């Protein structure tokens, strides 16, 4: 089984440690992982701005690069959701349907495909879980607070097995952080206010670290945290899972 690792463009540029942690975490499970060097983007930034037709070439390139892998794994629920949901506008060849059905957000891949929930991780900190919307409501990684029924959360299951971690309860368990791609810039005032409120919920409950399945949420929150010289830190989920004693 060969895994194709998809690393979102901004993670490659700004957060290589998240990509390294993803790679190492997968390799530790005895998997053969490849990172195709000619990968670019899933096309989401273009499509969410209302230009999905301009993203078609990007979609086709994505499929060309990743279709020969058994699974495609990425540390971004948002990109994975985009491929699954919005690659519907290109011709649904076998390659395309393969990519759309075999692409997984990394925590979902670890739990649902590999059946692994414990990685001997050690992270002795107070952590708040920011449930990135596309992972939560798009990929069903957990039960959103609006939906009535049994509680479940892939991420909480994984974090529950991390030694030393103290997971804080937030006032609003799954409020959006306000990133939203181009929304962060076009609706700057509301986006920033949403981010501030999300951070304050974590600070109020003495979280040292905010974690999430999407680095884009965390990039936005970190941008506000650093601008305001706040003490709380951000860490992608895979960085926590890949931390050992």
């Amino acid at each position, binding site marked *: 089984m060969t895994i194709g690792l998809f690393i979102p*463009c901004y993670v*490659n*540029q*700004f*957060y*290589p440690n998240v990509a*390294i942690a993803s790679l190492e975490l997968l390799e530790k499970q005895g998997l053969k992982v490849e*990172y195709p*060097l*000619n990968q*670019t*983007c899933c*096309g989401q*930034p*273009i*499509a*969410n*701005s*209302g*230009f999905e*037709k*301009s993203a078609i*070439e*990007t979609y086709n*390139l994505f499929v060309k690069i990743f279709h020969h892998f058994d699974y495609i794994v990425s540390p971004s629920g948002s990109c994975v959701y985009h491929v699954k949901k*919005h690659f519907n506008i290109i011709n649904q060849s076998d390659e395309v349907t393969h990519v759309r059905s075999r692409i997984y957000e990394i925590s979902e891949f670890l739990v649902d495909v590999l059946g692994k929930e414990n990685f001997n991780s050690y992270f002795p900190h107070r952590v708040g879980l920011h449930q990135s*919307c*596309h992972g939560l*409501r*798009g990929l069903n990684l957990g039960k*959103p*607070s*609006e*939906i*009535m*029924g049994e509680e479940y959360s892939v991420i909480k299951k994984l974090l529950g097995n991390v030694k030393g971690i103290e997971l804080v309860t937030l006032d*609003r368990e799954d409020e*959006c952080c*306000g990133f*939203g*791609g181009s*929304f*962060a810039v*076009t*609706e*700057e*005032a*509301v986006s*920033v*206010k*949403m*981010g501030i*409120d999300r951070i304050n919920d974590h600070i109020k409950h003495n979280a040292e670290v905010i974690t999430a399945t999407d680095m884009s949420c965390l*990039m*936005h929150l*970190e*941008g*506000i945290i*650093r*601008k305001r010289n706040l003490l709380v830190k951000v860490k992608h989920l895979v960085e926590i899972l890949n931390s050992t004693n």
Partner: protein
Amino acid sequence: MIGHPQAAEIFNEDEERVNWHDKSLWGVRQKRDNVASKVKGWEELRELASEIKAHTLSKLDEYLIQFEIQAKKNRAIVHWATNAEEHNKIVYKILNEHNAKNVVKSKSMLTEECGLNHYLGKKEIDIVDTDLGERIVQLAKEPPSHIVMPAIHKKREEIDELFHQHLKTELSGGDEVYLAREARKHLRQKFLNADAAITGVNFAVAETGIIVVCTNEGNADMGVHSTKLHIACMGIEKLVPKLEHLGIFLRLLARSATGQPITAYTSHFRSPKKGNDFHIVIVDNGRSNHLGMPDFRNSLRCIRCGACMNTCPVYRRSGGHSYNATVPGPIGSILSPGFDLSKYSSLPFASSLCGSCSNVCPVKIDIHPQLYKWRQVITEKSHKDRIKNIVIFISSRIFSKPSAFKLCSKFGNLSLRLLPQSITNSLVKGWTKHRMLPKVPENTFTEWYKKNRML
């Protein structure tokens, strides 16, 4: 006219007010969660309601005709209006025929949509909104900021001031009991003097020809019972096929809207009292056109509960007026572009696409996927924002060509590392006014990978 981002920015100048507004509406969302969690099979109920509405919309022509036949049998007089202007003319004509000068109205977003108050005002008819929240915004000469709680943006102290000015009340420091009593006295007088009552319609039952109006204040009943003329105004999408379907919607409506099990009054109107007149005005005003758009038609399932507004993190932090539409919030952002694409072109972008709206919707409208689809329609039809267009086009070129992408991202990365932060910050103004750019690491992951895995 300014778009949503500018209006939202103005709203955000007063952070304390934003916090207060956000908290009030979040409280309503929490009440909704609490009461919904007590209904066994809530999700199944939503599914059922959604399917009934989908079915109704698929045979809307038949159900409308059935409704008209039944309503006429009940001695209601039925009128059809293709647009707002026709609606207003019909209502005025009926009022004029009855020589009605003083009209009490219970809450109706449709008459708001048609601009009825303004129209009748010019004809020297005194039209009074009798729902407390509606009356407050009417006195303030503002549109409602929310479809269920029209004055949710007003603080008690502001209402105190407004009543003092218009109703000559004492300034009470925002004493809600005093203000509610004074409003009651004021409105009671309006009911007693009224010649006609106008109501909206929450549901119309095709099978029986009845209309159902849900209120908490009983003001629809007060109006209808204190006058000889009742005019009910409804959009064509208000139908449910049978009386037995009503229970499903009534169980969902108030719980989704305000977290109540049911509204205090659920009034069924069938036939006028002897000597009275009962008119029903059925309005299209763009709805059948909307029904003709496969990607967007199911937004007509909406039962106007406002739950999507209460849950929307953007609505809570930008206020209903920032949408500048009769129906604000997520549902307004997918309905309004269907009526006027260029006027409402900023609304589908006023969302982080978090998806919470679709999850609370009692009739399961796919609100956030429709926001996404409207964005595609808008960018294709409008060439206003050419620069953004070009930037997106270039980036799509870059993302679709690995070599170009590498060159550009390398340059972008380098420029962040080498240029003084003041310059890079000004390059990306929209991001950096309140946020820092990410720190640039020594190596990209690609560089690391080449060194560590490709030796």
